[in-house]
């Protein structure tokens, strides 16, 4: 991807999942590589548990903080229902989706007032809206490192492992090492797990 186009990445998830932090890590790695980056964030009233969406744009040109509808190249979904909700507005038949399959139930689902659809059904719908869909249980992988909280870093690893961006494993490992002090080792491990998981699938595809 050495052309001049801007790569549009959207991270969709729920407040408290750490997607603002992840978008910053990826953006910093891109900035260090000499790219122009713009990060736009939409998180409503910012309370924990609401929908959160980050628009991340990496390229050569100065662009705005918002990705035009149906113009995402990559959708990094931290939560299945949010991936579908955001995907419906921003995906297109050429786009790629990398999705964590571990759901976070909205309060009304938890208290039995609404139903959450089976994840397989969500996957099927998203699959029909994009060119390829990778799925992984990033929470399970994160738990292997000892902290389910680093699910977000597993997802960053998955994004880089997909080779859909111009960023390398080394680019991100450097940023993680410089930006994270507490839980640095755990985050590096989480990154590698996500990276390997998707890398394996990518290799099998090609």
């Amino acid at each position: 991807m050495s052309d001049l186009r801007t790569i549009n990445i959207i991270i969709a998830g729920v407040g408290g999942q750490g997607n603002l932090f992840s978008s910053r890590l990826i953006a910093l790695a891109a900035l260090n590589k000499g790219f122009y980056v713009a990060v736009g964030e939409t998180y409503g009233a910012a309370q924990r548990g609401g929908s959160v969406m980050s628009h991340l744009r990496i390229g050569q040109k100065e662009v705005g903080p918002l990705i035009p509808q149906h113009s995402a190249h990559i959708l990094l979904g931290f939560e299945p229902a949010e991936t579908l909700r955001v995907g419906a507005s921003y995906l297109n038949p050429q786009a790629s989706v990398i999705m964590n399959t571990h759901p976070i139930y909205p309060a009304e689902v938890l208290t039995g007032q609404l139903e959450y659809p089976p994840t397989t059904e969500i996957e099927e719908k998203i699959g029909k809206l994009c060119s390829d869909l990778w799925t992984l249980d990033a929470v399970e992988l994160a738990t292997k490192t000892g902290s389910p909280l680093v699910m977000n870093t597993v997802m960053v690893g998955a994004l880089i492992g997909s080779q859909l961006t111009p960023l390398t494993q080394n680019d991100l490992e450097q940023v993680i090492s410089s930006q994270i002090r507490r839980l640095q080792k755990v985050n590096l491990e989480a990154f590698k797990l996500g990276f390997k998981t998707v890398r394996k699938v990518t290799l099998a595809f090609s």
Partner: protein
Amino acid sequence: MGYDVMFGKTGNTVLGLGNEAIARGALEAGVQFAAAYPGTPSSEILGNLALVSKGLGIYTEWSTNEKVAFEAATAAAWSGLRALASMKQNGLFVVLDSLINVAFSGHGKGGLVLVVADDPLAHSSTTEGDSRPLGNYSDVVVLEPFTHQQAKDIISYAFDLSEKYGLVVLVRETTRLAQSRAPFTLGEVPHPSRKAVFDHSIPLHNLPRPHIRHAELHTRLEEIRKKEFEKSPWNRYTGPRQPSLLIITSGTGWKYANEATQILSTKGVGILALTTLSPLPEKLILKHLKSAKKVLFLEEIDPYLETQIRSLSAGLSKTATPKFYGKLSGHIPSYGECNIDHAIDAISRIQGIKYTPVSRAYAVKAKEAATLAPRRALTFCPGCPHRAAYYSILQAIKKNKGKGFVTGDIGCYSLGAFYHDIMRSQLSMGAGAGLASGFGNLDQFGLDEPVIAVMGDSTFYHACLPALVNIIYTQSKVTSIIFDNRSTAMTGFQPHPGIGIGATGEKVTTVPIENLLKGIGFTEISVIDPFDIEKSIKAVYKAITATTSHAIVFRRECALITNRRLIKSGEPAPRFIVDTDECIGETCKICSVQFNCPACVWDNETSKARIDGVLCNGCGVCVQICPAKAITGVKR
């Protein structure tokens, strides 16, 4: 926090928020005094200045409200310093009276800059307000940067202008600049060493004849228009001499205009990005109008440029007047954000270009697919003291045969609007208490329900005090409830006067809420832990059935603060479980549906409640409200 931005070396290119760029810009401008009241999307400006203030000898404060912040900053400017006040658009509404007065009077020899962050689409606001026409109306200078680099650099320019012409300079930004990240390059941070001196030569009043001051002010604004803005390098035009379409824009609109024309590959478009918004560079604008047949306005919130420039065009001959497109013509929605999609839509309609990023069939399929995702309504966190307090208020009203209603205002507790619809009003800061003061005097006209005013701790100091005085003074019959969660939680946990901590984390004097209430004249004041449900219900019931005005302070720190503390100390949070043999099941659902704690999970398979150990914040309220005593604590 923006450590890279605030502590970064000269020449570094950093990735920061628009607000961080502004905070750094203030440092580079040699600001010595900064005051603010927190409010999304503006809060990070003072938050970041407070971060570095000690080391650089800068004074920062979280003021009790925006008006006080602006007045405190005015004092510093009057004493010769460079002073900044920052706020969200609602703050400007609060400041307006003082602002217009200071515009008239001048503010001495120092520089006075007001940064206002507007919130189009009201992401974190109750209304969409535009500070540009208000700045114009107040006769202050208005600037709006359109990139992060400009946002940083413009602060120095704003201070220069303010000092040179003796005018207040308002810098406007919107959410998509304030809260988005982009690269910018850092400049040098000086060590300002100005001493504050009270300036006896210039009084800050407009006596005896304010209208003369008004005339002088207009002369100065004219001077700035001619000498500074008509040829200002801050305004930028790109495009051909005779554009097929001229886009006039301010703020984020510049990026949208550029990108939309590229996406549509439309040729011959000219973009005039204006930064100096009041007074407007009229000659420059007229020159561009004459060269264009069609003009589109891309701007956030109000059609400010559109109306100003349309009226400016009244002096043009009919043939020289272009056709105007924008919010007034319906090409851009007159509400919400002016985003990239609206820009693409408007330009494609004006230029007759077909734009279909995906097929119709695809769009329909996508829309249909989205309906599968269940909605994610905002709700109080598990273990939130506000939920417990509202639950008790609901029970007290129930006990009072359903009579009673709640007025409220702005803060996390605004979510009470969704909690069994209990909160019936959410206007401006302090408005819940003001409304209640009125309701409490309507009994003589037949109103037969007690009114309950709820207010947050930070809001209490901000704007509730005058209303509370009014309640006592007019003998209005109101139950005033203060939700004291020990921080300004909604905007990022800034301290307030009740906590004893200042902007840089230093220890300061505490101004206790109950002391103020006592001083105002409340005789019935109770301070209660909202997690004690029985006591809480009793107190609220007693208050709403009494003949005098009661005040209740529900005091309990925000669950997120408790959580952080527990994580830091490594101390385990209390844990709870449901004894499924005891749980009544379907006919009860008090913990999950009525109390509505998201950690009181309803298990559809067993038709019983279950506590989610990860989500639970250990408040213990469910234990108290379960009629079957099915929920108990677990020893670890």
